[in-house]
């Protein structure tokens, strides 16, 4: 699957060729001749003369032939030559850095670099510095993060990770790769201790950071879990506090619902009342949707409680009113969905009673779609 917005900003398009900075070439000073800023193609370097460059084979019917620059083609022709020969050398390692600079998404190059690092017993601490720099430059690339993970595993040392990832997140608090790497590090090396605190710091900065809310769920579900009533109470309180600060907050409401839905929304004493209170001053489509979910849950589990038929009817009426309100006024863009919910709940729990005023529609099964 090609890459996705936010996970990677470009797909297989070749990025703009960067001006060559020359660091990797310092090991091969002869490549520059007298002028250190003049770049020499590999095909013109004496010390590479033993290798026959291998051009790229696009097959008989190339569909989208990429217009590689001379420099790009030259580096990669020599990369293919190294692969073909299975050469494990310092010069090969240096070339991988050039190849990576031209296209850091080429996983074949990264793989070969890892093979070389092992074969040449390279200093992995130096490699950590290298990969740190690359990620800082290109934080939305899959391969660089994977490479870092491999080096951390080889070193069996996660001690720099949380701080490094925090730095990347300070530049983009929702970087999907960064969060994924963070989850891996925490889970692999059991670094749960301070993570909830970290999440709270991020939510202080931006209470709408969905990644942070996701991380909150991740941390709690892997530590205390959500079965402990004290934890659930604390989390409910936390959510409601955040909602008071920023009522129109999809993430907070999703989190609340997600945390409670398996246990049953209506099983939380006092929650419905708190939400009804909030409705007066901090209403939002999410609050109304949550209310609906509470009512639906109450209808579902009424057999286990001692609700009278009258109470059932009242609850159903309130649920249908919410659907109507959302469809007609508060969240009209999702009208079809709210009407679907209204019909579903009416069909399931409606019995014979007359419905609340809603768009006249013939009775249809809950699974109906147009």
């Amino acid at each position, binding site marked *: 699957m090609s890459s*996705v917005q*936010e996970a990677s900003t470009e797909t297989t398009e070749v990025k703009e060729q960067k001006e060559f900075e020359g660091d990797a070439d310092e090991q091969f000073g002869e490549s520059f001749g007298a002028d250190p800023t003049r770049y020499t193609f590999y095909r013109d370097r004496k010390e590479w003369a033993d290798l026959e460059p291998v051009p790229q084979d696009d097959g008989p019917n190339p*569909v989208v032939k990429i217009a590689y620059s001379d420099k790009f083609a030259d580096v990669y022709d020599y990369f293919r030559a190294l692969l073909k020969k299975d050469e494990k050398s310092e010069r090969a390692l240096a070339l991988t850095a050039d190849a990576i600079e031209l296209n850091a998404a080429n996983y074949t190059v990264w793989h070969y670099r890892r093979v070389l690092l092992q074969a040449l017993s390279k200093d992995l601490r130096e490699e950590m510095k290298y990969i740190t720099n690359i990620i800082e430059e290109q934080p939305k690339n899959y391969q660089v993060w994977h490479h870092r993970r491999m080096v951390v595993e080889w070193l069996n040392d996660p001690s720099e990770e949380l701080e490094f990832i925090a730095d990347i997140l300070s530049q983009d608090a929702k970087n999907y790769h960064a969060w*994924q790497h963070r989850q891996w590090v925490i889970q692999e090396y059991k670094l749960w201790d301070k993570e909830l605190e970290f999440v709270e710091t991020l939510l202080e900065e931006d209470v*709408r950071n969905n990644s942070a809310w996701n991380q909150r769920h991740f941390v709690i579900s892997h530590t205390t879990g959500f079965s402990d009533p004290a934890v659930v109470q604390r989390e409910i309180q936390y959510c409601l506090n955040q909602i008071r*600060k920023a009522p129109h907050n999809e993430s907070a409401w999703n989190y609340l619902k*997600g945390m409670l839905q398996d246990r049953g929304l209506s099983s939380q004493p006092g929650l419905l009342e708190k939400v009804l209170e909030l409705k007066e001053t901090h209403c939002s489509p999410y609050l109304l949707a949550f209310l609906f979910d509470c009512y639906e849950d109450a209808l579902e589990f009424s057999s286990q409680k001692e609700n009278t038929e009258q109470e059932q009817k009242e609850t159903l009426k309130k649920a249908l009113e919410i659907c109507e309100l959302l469809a007609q006024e508060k969240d*009209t863009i*999702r009208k079809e969905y709210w009407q679907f919910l209204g019909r579903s709940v009416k069909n399931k729990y409606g019995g014979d009673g007359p419905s609340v005023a809603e768009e006249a529609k013939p009775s249809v099964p809950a699974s109906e779609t147009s």
Partner: protein
Amino acid sequence: IAQLKDVIIKPDAPSSLLLDKHADYIAAYGSKKDDYVNNIHLKYDNAIGKMDTINVDKAVEFVLSCMNFDGGFGCRPGSESHAGQIYCCTGFLSLTGQLHQLNADLLGWWLCERQLPSGGLNGRPEKLPDVCYSWWVLASLKIIGRIHWIDKAKLRRFILACQDEETGGFADRPGDMVDPFHTLFGVAGLSLLGDEQIKAVNPVLCMPEDVLQRIGLQPDLLS
């Protein structure tokens, strides 16, 4: 407190489909139409033959383990729900005949929540809309049979506003630079919305339906 993330569509944004402009834009990238068809035909002959080389049950198990508390899917278990990942998962479950394992109502709700007041779709909560999500989200909704939960007129208006009237092509959002990636997904999204000027596009494989019919490939969709 950070404000709701969305874009404003200006009154002078493009409001009709500039098909000829887009054809010129893509043609300038140098690909010949016929090559696409031949190449894809070969690819799918291969793809169909190789399904039995993977352990489908284990793969399905893994995908389902990536289902989150909000009904969406992330990259790995615990990862944040993301429309791109959801597209991959629903497509995968379609190709393996396992769509029934989804909670289509819950997932459909998460997906239709991606629609912002501007009409555009984002990829996860509290992020800006992006025309490529007109594909990732819309195709996912189509696969699970809930595409009508999106306001189609508003989405169409957003997609059209992402066109560049001068160069042709689509950008991620109105006013930005165009690129082939967003052009593909803008056009494909419009097709899913029923634009008659564009061929029907299959939501699972993002390919013209007539190509798939020719090779006899019809992935499952929920109704």
